[in-house]
């Protein structure tokens, strides 16, 4: 994701080898077969030359000899076809396997990195690595290895044969190829840096596109009218500008290089050279057939090298991603007892910058409701997200049932903590599977019971395919409805500890009443942490914790805090005024 600098190049090279390690043997076999096939592919051409020699030799034609060469051509053909078929099959299967494996490994790894990794990146960048980059590596596996072998070996063997026939004519035909190599080497001299730039520019376009498509409603409402969002256009312009800066000066050279190994030029070299040197006519035939054909595989070599460069670059990014540090796994996992949650001297900051939470000491007793209140940015959401270990604390500890969350096995942790999110948290799958997210083995009756408890069952049955309706496809739910689906999800997951992140924020009036009814059912008997904006909803909480600037400034029951006349009392007064005074 970061732009590779020169010292990182070595790591990138090994990136490709890391990525291809599981299929290395298969690729080697494929390459060997391809090599044999390439050699066998020459047989028919050699046969023609030898047959020509027989016919043009002036002596009586030896029929047996001629038919022998026809047989050689046929055998060469069969061997080549068999080798090429096996090589392609082996490499394609290896390719498909390696693609799945890389994607799985990467997804697995990313599920265990601190959540901040995702907030620092756009989903477009993640998509780029998991989809596009892996595809580029794919290409390297399936095609480049095969094609490179064919493109390198075929011309080498051909040239060897031509040199053996007539070295002077071979030198003449080699001339254009040498010039081509020189030009290409000159043009590729800092290809690495340019490929990296190109990929960085493409990253920008990717991110801009995702944003543009996601923000299309805003673009349409404000978007300077019929014009695409500026960033997308700028990213596109930068990409185009970079391309013309990169390719512009090379243009003439590039055309010249392709020209010099084009069939007409090589044809002229072979025929002209043959006449000038008064070479054996049968051998001139060999040159016209083979030397003229050298241009195509050599050009393919150029494209192959470029694809290889792209693949290497991509593999570097994939390998880098695979090496992202995970949240450490406990060496000796411990099992929690009970559902008491403790935060003990917790300090936390994102990326070592401004401290978000400092000196937080807090215990959540089983069966009680604790409400977190405070202005935007006071650290409420961050605190709540430390419980399911989206991040690790910098100092202190978060304990559940007496065990530090860092020592809890992953599955144990998720069995203990449920979460109802503030923002949309539904996946593009059936409503049923959305509800059963935390318990995929739940029966339909259990799912339905959870939906009823969350007051969303009736709405779901009104959808075109009921519980099988797919969110975003035929299930279009309002904010309040989506909220109730996530509450049903939490009810079904049935965890002893539950975090509600501004759970009533987007509810509309009717669904707010419904959401609150469903929440009442959800919270009984659990350890509950509620992030609240609307103070009236948490008036009955066992404890209200007031956060400000990342610290706990007040703590107590509603009546106590109002009576104390501190921060909470001021918030309460402000909200009471806001909701009672007509607009």
């Amino acid at each position, binding site marked *: 994701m970061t732009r590779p600098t020169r010292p990182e190049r070595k790591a990138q090279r090994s990136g490709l080898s890391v990525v291809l390690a599981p299929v290395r043997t298969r690729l080697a076999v494929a390459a060997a077969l391809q090599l044999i096939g390439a050699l066998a592919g020459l047989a*028919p051409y050699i046969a*023609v030359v030898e047959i020509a020699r027989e016919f043009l030799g002036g002596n009586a034609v030896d029929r047996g000899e001629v038919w022998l060469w026809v047989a050689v*051509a046929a055998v060469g053909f069969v061997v080549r*076809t068999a080798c*090429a*078929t096996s090589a*392609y099959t082996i490499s*394609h*299967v290896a390719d498909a396997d390696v693609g799945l494996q890389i*994607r799985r490994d990467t*997804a697995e790894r990313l*599920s265990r990195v601190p959540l901040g990794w995702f*907030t620092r990146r756009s989903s477009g960048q993640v*998509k780029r690595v998991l989809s596009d980059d892996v595809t580029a590596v794919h290409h390297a596996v399936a095609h480049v290895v095969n094609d490179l072998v064919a493109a390198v070996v075929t011309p080498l063997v051909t040239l060897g044969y031509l040199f053996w026939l007539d070295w002077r004519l071979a030198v003449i035909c080699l001339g254009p190829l040498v010039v081509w190599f020189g030009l290409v080497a000159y043009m590729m001299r800092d290809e690495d840096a340019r490929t990296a730039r190109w990929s960085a520019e*493409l990253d920008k376009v990717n991110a801009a*596109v995702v*944003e543009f498509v996601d923000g299309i*409603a805003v673009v349409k*409402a*404000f978007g300077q*009218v*019929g014009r*695409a969002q500026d960033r997308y256009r700028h990213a*596109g312009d930068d990409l185009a500008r970079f391309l013309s800066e990169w390719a512009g000066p090379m243009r*003439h050279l590039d055309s*010249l290089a*392709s*020209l010099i190994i084009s*069939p007409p030029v090589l044809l002229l070299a072979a025929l*002209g050279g043959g*006449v000038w040197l008064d070479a054996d*006519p049968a051998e*001139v035939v060999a040159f*016209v057939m083979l030397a003229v*054909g050298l241009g195509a*595989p050599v*050009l*393919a070599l150029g494209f192959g090298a470029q694809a290889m460069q792209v693949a290497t670059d991509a593999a570097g990014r994939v390998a880098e991603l695979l090496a992202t540090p995970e949240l450490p796994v406990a060496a000796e996992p411990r099992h929690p007892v009970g559902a008491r949650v403790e935060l003990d001297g917790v300090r936390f900051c994102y990326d070592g*910058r401004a401290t978000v939470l400092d000196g937080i000491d807090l215990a959540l007793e089983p069966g009680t409701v604790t409400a977190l209140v405070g*202005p935007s940015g006071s650290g409420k959401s961050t605190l709540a997200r430390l419980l399911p270990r989206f991040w690790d604390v910098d100092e202190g500890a978060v304990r559940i049932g007496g065990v530090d969350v860092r020592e809890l096995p*992953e*599955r144990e942790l*998720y069995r203990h903590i449920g979460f109802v*999110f503030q923002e949309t948290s539904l*996946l593009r*799958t059936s409503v049923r599977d959305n509800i059963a*997210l935390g318990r995929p083995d739940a029966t339909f009756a259990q799912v339905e019971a959870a939906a009823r408890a969350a007051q969303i069952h009736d*709405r779901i049955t009104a959808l075109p395919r009921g519980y099988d309706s797919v969110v975003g496809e035929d299930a*279009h739910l309002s904010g309040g409805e989506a909220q109730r689906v996530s509450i049903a999800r939490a009810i079904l997951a049935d965890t002893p500890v539950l975090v509600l992140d501004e759970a009533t*924020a*987007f509810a509309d009036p*009717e669904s707010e*009443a419904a959401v*609150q009814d469903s929440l009442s059912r959800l*919270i009984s008997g659990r350890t*509950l942490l509620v992030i609240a*904006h609307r103070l*009236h909803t*948490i008036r009955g909480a066992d404890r209200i914790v007031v956060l400000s600037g990342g610290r706990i400034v007040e703590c107590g029951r509603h009546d106590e805090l109002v009576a104390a006349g501190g921060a909470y009392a001021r918030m309460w007064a402000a909200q009471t005024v806001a909701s009672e005074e007509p*607009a």
Partner: protein
Amino acid sequence: MIRKLFGMVDRADRPRFIRWVGLLVAFSVLQGTCVLLVVPVLRPLLNGDREAAVPWLVVLAAVTAATCAAFYAQALHGQQIADDLLLGLHHRVGDHLARLPLGWFGTGRHGRLTHSMSQGTANIIGVPAHLMQPVVSAAVTPAVVAVGMVVFDWRLATALIIVGLLLLATHNWSQAAIARSFAAIDSAAVESASRVVEFAQRQPVLRAFGRIGEDNRLLDDALVGQRRAYGEMSRNAVTALIAFSTAVQAAFVALIAIGVTLALGGSLDPAELIVLLVLVTRFVGPLIEVVDHAAALRMASEDVDRIDEVLAVRPLPEGHTTRADRPGEVCFDGVTFGYGDAPVLRDVSFAARPGTLTAIVGPSGSGKTTILRLVARFWDVDTGTVRVGGTDVRELTTEALADQLAMVFQDVYLFDDTIEANIRLGRPDATAAEIREAARLAHVDEIVDRLPDGWHTRVGEGGVSLSGGERQRVSIARALVKRAPIVLLDEATAALDPHNEAAVTAAIRGLAEQRTLLVVAHRLHTVASADQILVLDGGRIVQRGRHADLIDQPGRYRDFWRERERAQGWRLTVVR
């Protein structure tokens, strides 16, 4: 494909495109001529008459020079077209998308669209840059060779034509087989890409519910599906990939065998046989070259098709009226509308006079938000008319309509830019002072003070680094800075914390003094103070009037109000 590509090129650049295609054809014809000239050079040579070959060699040299010139010219043209195409396509696709109805951006499009708009455009430009030349040459050069051969020897010509037709059939068959497999691969890849985006965006919820690694079935199934599609392609495509080169070799070996039989039998001059065999290798040269590019070409042609599809979607027809007669007025007249088959709004009529507040209330899914979307013409109505400023929205130009409206959405989306830039989106030419003023009114300045880089803090994709309440305040500031006569407000203040709620309410109240406000309202005091309340149920307006009139009548509104009051008094309590 050339035609579609032509359609994508800017109108002004089209003459160059036509010149380019002409040069391509000229190059291919000249290349065919070079190949033909092998016959008069090689035949005397094989018969031992070196002198007779020399004049033809001179001709060959001259034609080769012309071929080179044509190649050079077409290459430069092609690259220039590629450059212009890359520059132009992003603009065209972007501008086009912004004019499509929002309904078009459904699920499933996301992955495909983002691919087309980024990597896709980069692939497309490979076509003029270097992929088109082999294609044109593969079609034209062998044809020229076969036709020209008739002049030298009709038997050789017949043999070449037969070989050529067989190879063409093989090529078409294999390409069709590959195309079929690639269509399957493509849809699997699109599904997997959109699951990856979901994976990244929904990471918190996936983790909170333990869907990690292979337990994330949605992603894993998509990945396995992609593997399966690849596996299936391998079976089809491997045969197809090697079919052509195998056919070339087979034809060659067969011609050797047949030729040898004829030559030994005396009915074919040995020199003739050799010339034929040589010609076959040169004849298929251009075809082999196109096979080398087949994969890249196919990818590019799919990208061309996809972008062509996007560009072919009809945008909402553009109106021509540039000025609204009665600024600030919104009027629905017998509007019926549905996103799919089922209508969401049925026969809705109402008018919001300039400077008034209209509150829309009703249960989830009753069509409240849809009314706002129709005012902004995110979709066109099925029947009836929506008038803004006295004119049917379909007759207004996009600019004229946008000038009338400012919106605060329920699901606030911010662009990954600074807070200032996000506010400025409301009106790009706003002065810094105007932006600060709007920010102050919407209490965004408090957020700014808290952030590490102040006004220059980037908010992350979609605004992720701000809380829900903060995002909404930024979006209110964005609407404030626009200073449009009509403000559309969708449950805007619901997620604000108490400290700011009162202040933002006051700001919106100030805004309402000179403006028409259309609010999907949830808070009772907004509703109570409205000049007009529209009560929606099942897509119809079931009641309308002021609070004082409605609260005394039995009906939806009174139920709504009572339920709402119950919610107000509700507390989160544990049933012990």
